[in-house]
């Protein structure tokens, strides 16, 4: 018995330019992946009902009968099931309704998915994609508002993607599903209604960040919702004569240091925009890696993060204050150029 998913894609998606919401882009990626490869299945709590809890799965149960599988509420259990499927010829996509539930599946995520191939001396491939609905701003309270994108970044054997736009959602999700190793794929709840152009059929490279706006004075590096806010901050800054380069990190593991370094070599300044606490996150890791490479800063790097030692409140006004805002990002960039 080979454990490789041998089924080559049976179809390819014709390249096509469309305008989609982020939610529709996720849906399109799922649809195209399932159409191309019959071993792809989607599983998780309520994935089949009413388009799924965040309406990303509309139409899929009808188009792919039996391949959109609702599970009982048991994240660790069904993540293990997905692993078992992945080493016996299938390519499961697992949906985790809120990023905060990842620790419920903690053992599967830390000790099983990323280590299963290794423990066997390379006998397995584990093509499991975990789709994670993440992020704050929804007034869901402190147990339902994490982005969680950095929680498992230390672990070799797994990759982590984070989508900031419709195009990113489409092509990163396609890449995650295609990949033969486990991938945690992060979607941001606040982005679902956003609209943007999508080139259907594109599959992203694994591990490359993307420069979304060029600039010379300061680099702003962000993920998920913070990318949008960074682009808005860059607009503000441009009006003030500050030229900001905005990079979407896209992969929290592996981190694309060359792209970041090239940008910082040009600007000499870095602002991290992160919807997470700074401790233990990708932002700290990026700054550390640059520091260890002896980056000659024009001014010290900065991070706009969740406020230290506070938790995410329900209270709407307080939650808004808690999350990094366009203004805070712009202010950090301004400070970094000395204004």
């Amino acid at each position, binding site marked *: 018995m080979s454990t490789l998913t041998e089924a080559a894609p049976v179809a390819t998606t014709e390249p096509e330019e469309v305008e989609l919401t982020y939610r529709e882009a996720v849906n399109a990626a799922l649809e195209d992946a399932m159409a191309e490869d019959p071993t792809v299945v989607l599983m998780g709590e*309520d994935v089949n009902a*009413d388009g799924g809890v965040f309406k990303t799965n509309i139409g899929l149960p009808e188009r792919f009968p039996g391949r959109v599988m609702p599970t009982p509420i048991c994240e660790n259990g069904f993540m293990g099931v997905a692993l078992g499927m992945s080493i016996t010829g299938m390519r499961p996509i697992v949906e985790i309704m809120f990023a905060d539930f990842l620790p419920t599946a903690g053992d599967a995520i830390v000790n099983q998915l990323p280590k299963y191939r290794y423990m066997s001396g390379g006998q397995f491939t584990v093509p499991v994609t975990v789709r994670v609905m993440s992020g704050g701003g929804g007034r869901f*309270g402190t147990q339902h508002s994490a982005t969680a994108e950095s929680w498992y970044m230390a672990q070799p054997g797994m990759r982590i993607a984070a989508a900031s736009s419709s195009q990113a959602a489409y092509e990163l999700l396609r890449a995650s599903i295609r990949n033969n190793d486990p991938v945690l794929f992060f979607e941001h709840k606040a982005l679902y209604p956003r609209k943007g152009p999508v080139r259907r059929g594109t599959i992203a490279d694994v591990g490359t960040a993307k420069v979304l706006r060029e600039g010379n004075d300061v680099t702003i590096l962000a993920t998920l919702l913070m990318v949008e806010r960074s682009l808005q901050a860059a607009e503000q800054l441009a009006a003030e004569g500050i030229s900001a380069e905005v990079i979407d990190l896209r992969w929290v593991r592996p981190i694309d240091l060359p792209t970041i370094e090239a940008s910082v070599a040009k600007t000499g300044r870095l602002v991290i925009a992160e919807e997470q606490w700074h401790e233990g996150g990708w932002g700290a890791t990026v700054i550390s890696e640059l520091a260890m490479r002896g980056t000659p800063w024009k001014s010290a790097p900065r991070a706009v993060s969740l406020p230290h030692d506070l938790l995410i409140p329900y*209270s709407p006004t307080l939650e808004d204050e808690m999350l990094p805002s366009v203004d805070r990002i712009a202010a950090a960039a301004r400070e970094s150029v000395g204004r």
Partner: protein
Amino acid sequence: MAGTADSDRRVGWYRQMWTIRLFEEKVQELFMSGLIQGTTHLCQGQEAVSVGSISAMQPGDVQTNTYRGHGEALALGMTPETGFAELMGRSAGGSKGVGGSMHFIDTSLGNIGANAIVGAGLPIAVGAALSFKLQGKPHGALTFFGDGATNIGTFHEALNMAAVWKTPVVFIITNNLYGEYSPQMTTTATKDLARRADPFGMPGIIVDGQDVDVVHREVSAALERAKAGEGPSLLEMKTYRYRGHSRTDPAKYRAPGELEAWKLRDPIDILGAKLAEEGLLSADAQQQVRTEVQAAIDAAAERAAQSPVLTLEETRQYVYAD
């Protein structure tokens, strides 16, 4: 003695059930008007479970519940104003507005946890019960959770620990037939969830969750047994939620007529009919209760909206005790 409730108490239950029902209706209304944001999980239809169970508690007893915990919180004595303030994110909220709909908590009333994570409240209740036992205190704990929660590992872990240690805890399944949008039988290999008690050598009892008298009697008995050192019980309340799972759910997955059929056995109606028949509360007096409760609810919501919001800096004290 377990299970006998005097007339006055039962009239009080009737009022409590209306309080819960109308509180939840008001929540829905305030959502529509934008005064409450985020999500909420309403419990209309399940009032007998909350009131019948909570009324079995004695001073010092505690309970944990879930994101669908407004009913238990109100039955424990939380004022509607406190609840509305929490939902509006105000400092007069039970959790100062930082908790929200899923975290109505008041330790002074024995409400030691409303959890937004499925299954997380069960071990916590077992721990509280174990702690009472170890400290020689005469108290016990209830824990409320849904049918869907009986599929997650902590359910099994909690029942096993409670049985091994004979902790004074009662497990209460509010079986409303659905876990979110999923009908019980699509996710659960057991129709009668009470059966899940058997491997732990624990009584598993099916209870008519629409009849507050029955609920009260069974929970009282189970809690007495537990406190007497005879071990925990698993009680399955057969009930139904009238609304969708959460604010955004239109509940399209229901079989036609299902909701209507359950409404024929509405828990408030059932108690009301008994109270009328027994001459304890006439139909008119019942109408009067409803009107009073509605007025109180409306006034509570207005007062709650006057409460200030904390500053973010003020929330810092809630993160660490030391």
